[in-house]
Structures are given as C-alpha cells and as structure tokens.
C-alpha cells in the first residue's frame, strides 16, 4: 500500500513537471524598461546589415543646469563640428574626453545594437576608428585584433594583436620568458630584478599616479578621537612597507597626491615614524594597552598595491608591536568591500587606494575630500572642501597652488586617513620589441609596437575583459582592447599623460571655459567603412549622458567614467 502511494505521488509530480515544461512559456521576469533588451544577436552579421545615414545636425541639451551635472548641451553644428556647452568652467575638459570610455562609435551601430544589454553585439564587437579593429573575442581564450588598413593616421606596424590574460604574475612572467607572449602587464614585485637581469626582456615602469592609504571612519570609535588617528599616523613605519613589499621605484607617500601631478606635493609633509610618541598619544587618548579593531581589504592587484595580503599582514604586525592594537584581518569580496566602504560601513581600519583617471588634482584630492566624497571616511571636513572648491574653479596652476597648500596642511592636521605609498607598476616586453610604451594611465597603444620577424604581437594582462563596450567599463582590462579599437576626440600622447588631438583637429574653449568647440578631422573612416561625422560624436556622448535615452543600456548601466567626469546623468530616474 505504501509503495503504491509513493509511486502515485511521484507520478503526479512527474506529470506536473512535464506539463510545466511543455506548457506556455512564462512571461519574462525582467520587465522591459524603456530600453528594448536585445536577448541574443539577431544574426551574427548584424554589422553587415547597417546602412550609413547621411548627416543631419543634431543637438541634445539639458533644459537647465539644475539636474546637477556638468554637461549643458552637445551639438553637432555641422558635419565636422561639435560644440560642448558646460554648466560650469572645466579646465580639465580635454583630459576627460581623452579617456577611453569616450571612444567614438558609429551612431548606426549604437542604434542597431540597442545600446547594449545581455547578448548585445555592442558588448562584444565595438566598432571604432582606431588602428586596430576587432577580429574576434574568443571567450575564455583571447581577444584578437587585426590591423585596420584604412586608418587615418600612421598604420599599425604589426598585423595582428592577440590579447590574453593570466591572473598570476608568475604565470605571466613564465610565458614571457618562454616566448609564448611578447609583453605582460603588472610585473610581480619579486620579478623586477629577474627581468632586469634578463637581457632578452625589457621592463618599463609606470609613473606612480596612485595612492594606497589606511582609511578610518571618523564617526566610528575609537577613530573619532584625533589622538588615536594621530597615533596610527605616526606609529606605522611606512618606509618599511614600501621597501619590503613594493617594487623598486615606489615611494612613501608624503602627501595624498603623488608629486607627478601638478600641485600634488605642496604644503607640509606627512608625520615621521615615531612609535614612542605614538604610543604616548594612544595612552593619552585612553588606550594605554591598545584596543581591538578590524583591518579590512579586498584581495586585488592594483598599481597602488601589488601584494595587498602581505602589506596588510605587515600593518597588522606593526600595529601590534608598536601600538599594542590587535587588528583582525577581514578579507572581503571586491564588490561587497567597495559597497561597504562607500556606505561608511567599515568601522575599523581599511586599506584602499586610488589610481588617477586623468592627471589633475581634481581627480585626486577632490574625489576623497571634496564635494561628492563618499561616506567611507565619515563626516567630511568643511575646511578642506572649501579650499578644494576654490582651487577647482581656477584654470591657472600657479593660482591654484596656495589653495592646495592649505588643503594638504588641513589633511595633515585632521588625519582622515594615513597615506602609505605611491606604487610603481610595470610592463615587461621582449627586448626586441620596438616602440614598446607604458602609460601612467594604463593607456598603452600597440600600434607603434613591432618585433622584427613577427606579424603577431601577443600581450598578456591580468584578467579577461568583462565586456568590450568601454563606455560602460571602468577596469583596465576591459578598456585595453577598446583603446586600440576606438578613438576619442582627444587622446593621450603615447606613453605620456599629455593630451593630444585625435579625432578632433583641435578643441578650443571660450573665454570662461564653459564652451568647447571641436573641429573634427575629415575623411576618417570607421572599421565598417562608414565616415565619421559630428552626429556619431554626439550619439556616443548622448547614450552615456541621457538616462532616458533608450540606448542608455551598456553592460551594467553604470557608465562610470561619464558619471565621474561629468557628475550626473540627464533625466536620471
């Protein structure tokens, strides 16, 4: 009797499962928002079905500047002129539009692919004007680029570029030594000496435009007491950290900003290492025997720290030995960590860093101590914010300097965090690679690189790109192919942080730096043969700027660089 009951029930369940499977398909869980989500590419040759639209003038503009962003309007005045109108003066405008995310794609392609979304070809097949075009992205394997023979500038020297990835620095070095790859990124600190000693390889250091700091939330006890923060500022031997865990060329951070950025190293230098005074301060604050706290971080490799596990353990050991502070290490997952930091939820010590996106103080100190800073360090300091605001509204570096002196001195006085190091990161190429270049902004170009006797150049980075739509990506590995494939109005001169015109022949500002008019280069072709015109530029910017645009989809919809550089999206929900 029991067995037949069991059989019966199982049959019922089985039948219902079959009915469900064969029944009507469920309506999509994901309700369509304004953007028509493209599930899968309609056909692999979507690109070949495109028809070029003739130019017609187009303007996109914000009704007023109340929405809080920098852009007021973007106008395609005529076929080869684009005018940007800003809500407030921005002397760093050219540096911003030189960033990889603003590479121009044809408007027809943006339209046809729906601006992104799961399975959209925009995420896997960008179309640009660069020296290289995409051949294919073999997921999990490599990204293959091939030379664009109709390039407007100097053609690429090597026919094929293969971008691969290896998460371990030892593996990258291995393959470089074996000759299976021609260049690697993020050389491991232990490998610098090895590569320098190897005559078959060359190592190129990137200038350290970054900072690693120990963060403290000034609303979380005991870090709300200045003496405690000061004790930690003086109680950690930062030069020991730099000399043991950083590659040669890295420097101890005397200021928050590295010296290679104008006005980065003005004002008073940071405190010296003085454990005795530090311990006395801690006792003064009421902790003669130290206290227990947490040291949080995420296990990632960044130019500002190559071996964060080792650095964290040394900080932990020093805190214990010098100050009797017991710090439990808490390694968090990257996304969760950033979210917690942003929301001010890290109540202990935490390790974080920053690499500049463009070489200006407004992309350094302002991010952390100016308007729009997040809650990671607690309550903002109004006096620092004032100084920075005044500095950011001026164009002349010399005029900005006294404000940055004030800001730096205030930072030293308030101790919102402890700056640790400016880290050198490096790329290594085969010694036979001509034209090998590195960029402080990780903006390396492969077009000028060649190795005699090879028509393929293989590069190995850290990880696979998340998508190939650079407008909606912020990590270097996803932007690297984008940089080779697309170009912006401006770009960075190879191996430097100086901006130079690319698709524009020049962008001139008006008197108070609120309008920038850019003249486009003529006879520039996209990889699919279409011609570049001002409407493509407007479209490229507009899909990122206007949140109500159906093409404002991307990969995650974050459009990080646009929102960082230009403060806000138009018509944000």
């Amino acid at each position: 009797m029991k067995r037949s009951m069991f059989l019966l029930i199982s049959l019922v369940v089985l039948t219902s499962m079959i009915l469900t499977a064969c029944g009507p398909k469920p309506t999509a869980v994901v309700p369509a928002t304004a953007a028509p989500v493209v599930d899968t590419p309609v056909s692999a040759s979507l690109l070949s079905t495109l028809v070029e639209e003739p130019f017609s003038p187009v303007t996109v503009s914000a009704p007023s500047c109340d929405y809080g962003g920098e852009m007021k309007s973007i106008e395609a005045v005529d076929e080869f002129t684009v005018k940007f109108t800003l809500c407030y003066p921005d002397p760093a405008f050219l540096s911003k539009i030189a960033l990889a995310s603003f590479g121009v794609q044809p408007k027809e392609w943006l339209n046809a692919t729906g601006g992104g979304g799961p399975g959209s070809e925009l995420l896997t097949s960008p179309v640009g004007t660069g020296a290289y075009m995409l051949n294919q992205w073999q997921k999990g394997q490599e990204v293959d680029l091939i030379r664009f023979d109709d390039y407007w500038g100097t053609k690429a020297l090597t026919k094929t570029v293969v971008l691969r990835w290896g998460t371990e620095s030892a593996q990258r070095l291995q393959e470089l030594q074996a000759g299976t790859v021609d260049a690697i990124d993020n050389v491991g600190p232990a490998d610098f000496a090895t590569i320098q000693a190897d005559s078959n390889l060359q190592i190129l250091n990137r200038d350290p435009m970054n900072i690693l700091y120990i963060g403290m939330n000034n609303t979380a006890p005991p870090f709300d007491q200045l003496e405690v923060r000061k004790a930690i500022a003086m109680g950690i031997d930062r030069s020991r950290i730099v000399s043991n865990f950083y590659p040669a060329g890295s420097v101890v951070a005397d200021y928050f900003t590295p010296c290679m950025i104008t006005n980065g190293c003005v004002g008073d230098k940071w405190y010296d290492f003085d454990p005795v005074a530090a311990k006395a301060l801690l006792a003064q604050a009421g902790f003669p025997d130290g206290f227990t706290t947490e040291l949080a971080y995420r296990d990632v490799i960044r130019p500002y720290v190559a071996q964060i596990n080792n650095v964290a353990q040394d900080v932990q050991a020093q805190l214990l030995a010098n100050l009797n502070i017991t710090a439990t290490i808490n390694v968090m997952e990257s996304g969760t960590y950033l979210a917690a930091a942003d929301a001010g939820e890290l109540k202990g010590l935490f390790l974080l860093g920053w690499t500049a996106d463009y070489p200006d103080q407004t992309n350094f100190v302002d991010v952390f101590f100016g308007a729009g800073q997040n809650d990671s360090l607690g309550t903002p300091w109004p006096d620092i914010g004032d100084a920075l605001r005044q500095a950011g509204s001026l164009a002349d570096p010399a005029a900005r300097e006294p404000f940055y002196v004030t800001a730096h001195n205030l930072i030293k006085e308030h101790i919102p965090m402890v700056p640790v190091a400016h880290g050198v990161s490096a790329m290594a190429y085969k010694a036979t690679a001509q034209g090998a270049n590195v960029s402080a902004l990780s903006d390396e170009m492969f077009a000028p690189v060649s190795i005699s006797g090879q028509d393929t150049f293989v590069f190995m980075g850290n990880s696979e790109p998340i998508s190939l739509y650079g407008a909606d990506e912020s990590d270097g590995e996803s932007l690297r192919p984008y940089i080779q494939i697309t170009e912006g109005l401006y770009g960075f001169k190879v191996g430097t942080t100086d901006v130079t015109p690319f698709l524009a022949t020049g962008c001139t500002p008006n008197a108070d730096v609120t309008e920038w008019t850019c003249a486009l280069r003529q006879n520039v072709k996209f990889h699919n043969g279409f011609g570049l015109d001002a409407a493509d530029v407007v479209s490229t910017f507009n899909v990122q700027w206007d949140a109500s645009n159906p093409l404002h989809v991307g990969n995650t919809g974050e459009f990080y660089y646009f929102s960082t550089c230009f403060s806000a999206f138009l018509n944000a929900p």
Partner: protein
Amino acid sequence: MSQTEETIAKLDSENISLMSVSLWQVTWRRLFRRKSALVGMMILGFLIFIAITAQWLAPYDPYIPLIGLEPVTMRAKPCIHLLGCPADKYQHLMGIDGNGRDEFSRLLYGARLSLVIGLSTVTFAILIGTFLGAVAGYVGGWLDNVIMRVLDVLLAFPSLLLAIAIVTMLGPGLINALLAIGIVSIPSYARVVRSSVLTVRETDYVSASKAIGSNTLTILFRHILPNVLTPLIVQGTLGIASAILDAAALSFLGLGAQPPTPEWGSMLGAERNQVFTAPYLVFYPGLAIMLTVLSFNLLGDGLRDALDPRLSHVNG
C-alpha cells in the same frame, strides 16, 4: 589424572581465563602486525610530538615578522648551516615567507592547527551524524525516508563546492570553515550508523531485549551503539584525513584560516604565485599536509582490517 585433566587443573589454579582477551587487545595486536599501519602510527606520533612541543622546537616566533630584527629579504631561500650556508647568516631551515617570517617555525605550529582541525570537524560530524543515523535506522518509516532524502540532497553536491558555499554564507574564518566541513561530512557517518543500526536491529538479542521490556534508549546505548563503534572509528579516522585536506583546500582558496594564522593550506595558498621563484614555500607546507593525511589514511586502513571480523587471522 589424564594429561587433559592436568592441564585444566593447572589453568584453573592459575586463574587464567581463556576468554579474557578483549576485542581491543585483539585489534591492537592485529594493527601492529600491519606494517603500513605502523608507519602511519609512527608519522602520527611524530606529528603529535611536534604539535605539543612546537613552542620549544620552533627557533622563531611564527607570527612576528623578522623585518627590523635581522637583515631579511622576503621569500629568501633556505639557509641551512649544515649544508653550507655561511655561519654568519641567520639559519632558516625552510626559508622566509612573504612577510618575513620563518617558514620552519610556522610549519611546526601548523601541525597543532591541523590536528585540532581534523579532530574537531570529525567529532562534530560524528555526533550529529550518529544521532541522525540512529534515529533514522531505529525508528524507520517516514522519518527514515525524510532524513535519508535530505542527506541525499547534501550528498548530491560535490563536497568542496558545498563547503565553499556554506563558508561564503557564514563569512570566511577558520571556525566557519570547520563548521562547513563538518556539515558536509555528516551524511557519510549517518549512513554508516544507519546501516549498522538496521543490521543490529533485527538480531535476536535486541528482540530479546525488547521482549523483556527495555526501553528504546537502553537498547540503543547498550546494544546498538557499541556495534556501530567499529565502523565509526574506521570512518572517523579516514574522515580526519579528508577533513584536513578539505580545510587545507578552503584555506588555499582564502576561505579558511585567516592571516597571520600558520595553517598549512593558507601558507601554500598565499605563496602559490611564487611557485617558480620560491618553490620551497609551496613544497614544504604541501608535504606536511600530505604526510599528515597519509598517516591518518594508513591508520584508518589498518584499523579497518584489524577490526574486520571476516579476515581470518589466527592468534588474534
């Protein structure tokens, strides 16, 4: 008297009972006969010795970096005076790790940790597994079915992936890793206990016990569980071996022991990028794991054979 009667009288007078050789003595003797089990016990004894005397054996502190205390480079090669390293350099038998700590000292302290890991996980899993298995086996019926189905679902997942998921839920840390491994190990013990219980439940002496009115608990404890003990011991010893391996795997992935704890798996995991430049930092912790696990495996195998009544060994 006949010779037989003489012998019997003699034995009687000497008060020797022919039945006094207990199961444990038999087992012990049989265990010692197997060479592999002997090797396992020796290694284990050595490990326990190291675990107890680590503080005195270790030349350096396993937690304090040597930066500033002596001229040390990160991940320096081993310096063994006996093998030619100049006497003016500090001796580091297995080199220096990535944070300037003596690898050999950390290895010694790691023995303690590994043994604790193995014992605690298995104890936890045995306690819960025995309870579940006994209940399922003895009570039977729908309860048995439910418990077994749940355990089947647990067993449907590869154990390491399930442990990873549990640790991610609870947050990384050694205690959570142990909990995860313990949970994942429960089904095998439950099954062992259940099948033993099922076998014993139908025997005559249990029926007799029921007939005379003993309650369930008495039956369970006095008759059934002692029979369960032998397969549990075997399973448990082997379980310690796999628990140590799993804990090392979780620590290797960064989910188990947190720095600066000198656990072998996390020591290995921290240095895995440096396998080509500092292979000794990867080799020694792994070797230690292997030897420890080997000793438990050998011991478990030996116990299994020694406790197996089927194997007809004379002079038990």
